[in-house]
């Protein structure tokens, strides 16, 4: 029955091929992680975290200002993006039933696919041009624009998960709508929303493109929102495309720091999601 054997052979071959897909997917991941860790860890020392970058050729120095700058810019972005995004999500969940809600929901879904470089152009026009300078604020605005759509969608889903009977019980006891929304519904969904916020912040921390011509870069410490500011991601980019091997090494170390930062945020987010603060059933 060679037809039967042929069919069996095809079955085995396709299974093997698909399993190969798993390998193909995992090898680059393993390689990236391995290299970032092995090449990056050599340069990690206290100076790396606390010092300013040194000129080319000079040993030592660090990316302290870039780490701080990233936190600063992401902080500004969160201050703008989180209230807007979460608020929009609550709106969609509580009052988003009609046509307007549909339009907003659709817009949020589609906006979440906007390339991050476009967001940089928008922030340039909105903030850099009027202020006539590059600034951390511009970078923050750009990242905020990225955060709002995804936060809105996640928040909406999470708030919708809160069982109706909780809201109804509260209303039936004579509690006003806004109090019900805040203290009953949102409090129940809080864990999930915190998770979503952390994940959005993690994603924003890893962005480079929106910062390239908004917050630009800075060789020094910067505490002012209206000045160009260093960031970890832009620093990695600059170091990587430079012709200097010393800077290449620094790029790997900075990449390791970035992965640790993003990873830590994501881990906390997932830990939150599973803990007792997570979405309750």
């Amino acid at each position, binding site marked *: 029955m060679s037809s039967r054997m042929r069919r069996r052979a095809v079955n085995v071959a396709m299974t093997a091929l698909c399993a190969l897909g798993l390998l*193909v997917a995992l090898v680059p*991941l393993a390689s990236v992680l391995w290299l970032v860790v092995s090449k990056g860890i050599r340069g990690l020392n206290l100076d790396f975290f606390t010092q300013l970058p040194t000129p080319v050729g000079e040993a030592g120095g660090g990316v302290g200002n870039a780490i701080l700058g990233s936190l600063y810019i992401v902080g500004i972005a969160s201050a703008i993006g989180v209230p807007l995004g979460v608020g929009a999500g609550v709106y969609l969940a509580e009052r988003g039933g009609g046509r307007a809600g549909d339009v907003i929901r659709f817009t949020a879904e589609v906006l979440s696919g906007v*390339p991050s470089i*476009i967001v940089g152009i928008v922030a340039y026009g909105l903030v850099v041009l009027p202020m006539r300078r590059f600034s951390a604020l511009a970078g923050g605005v750009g990242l905020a624009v990225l955060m709002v759509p995804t936060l809105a969608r996640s928040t909406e889903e999470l708030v919708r998960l809160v069982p109706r009977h*909780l809201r109804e019980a509260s209303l039936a006891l004579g509690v006003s709508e806004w109090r019900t929304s805040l203290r009953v519904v949102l409090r*129940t969904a809080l864990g999930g929303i915190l998770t979503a916020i952390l994940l959005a912040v993690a994603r924003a921390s890893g962005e480079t*493109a929106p910062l*390239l011509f908004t917050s630009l870069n800075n060789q020094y410490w910067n505490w002012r929102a209206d000045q160009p500011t260093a960031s970890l991601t832009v620093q990695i980019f600059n170091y990587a495309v430079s012709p200097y091997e010393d800077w290449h090494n620094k790029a790997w170390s900075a990449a390791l720091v970035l992965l640790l930062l*993003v990873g830590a945020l994501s881990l906390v987010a997932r830990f939150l999601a599973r803990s007792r603060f997570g979405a309750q059933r």
Partner: protein
Amino acid sequence: MQRASDILTVRKPGRLSRIAAPVRANVPDKAWAAVLTVLGMAVLAVAAVIIVELWRLSSGVLARTGVLSFIVESNWDVVRDLYGALPFIYGTLITSCVALVLAVPVSVGLALFLTEMAPPGVRSIVSFPIALLAGIPSVVYGLWGLFVLVPLLRGHVEPWLAATLGFLPFFRGPPIGLGYLAAGVILAIMILPTITSIAIEVLRTVPLALREAALALGATRWETIRMAVLPYARAGIMGATILGLGRALGETMAVTMLIGNSPTISSSLFSPGYSLPAVIANEFAEASGGLHTGALAALGLILFAVTLLLNVAARMLVRISRRGPARVAA
């Protein structure tokens, strides 16, 4: 389970209950509703702002040269203020095509493996590394690409391709490593998690009854997939592919670092080129305002429009597929 009384402050007895009180306009509730509505509008505002800014910055250049001739012009000469979008559109399309050709079979195969072939626990274990892949920042992929992928391509892959498939125009020219192929490969790696996770979602909606129908006729597992599962999931997988394409088109940093930054058009995958996001990333900061900035913004507008359309198409496809080609009869 939480009880409502745990959460609320119950009114003290003795105060007039709401029912007996005179009916007043409930200001706090109205204020709350207004606040929420404003926040909801924020999303629309964001969308409006994006479109307005892009248009404002680019309209000067587009008015001068006209949209169509801007698109087909292949010269990009900053010194002489000559701007054309063609090399970047070409580069973006080519690298995305390479990425799709590489990523889609692997993603769909992986999704099939995880949903149809592997023991049930494997899927939940593997979802973690896939999520990891998706979370690595683009600039880190670029870094890895520069120092691992490019030497690999230059030293081994491209010479091999030139030797075996060199009769094709795609594999001619000096293998320098940087170029369309490198950018395409890194894009493939980056869009793989996107396509895979949506494909998995889509495959899981295929009803068990269809698989059983094929099995009962004597189908092998692969034949079941081919006959019952894939046709059903066709639309959704296409949607996943288009979403992956959308992501590839807009990807900036990794491509910027690997594509070679040459505003030219070439049929060979080994040559350096440029993409829409890459040129914006490289030149925008130094653009001195005026036509150069306007041209870059115009490129951004083109990119925005294309990714928007693709995104809409993709999400519609995924939505259609969730409902099934039509429900299997009750």
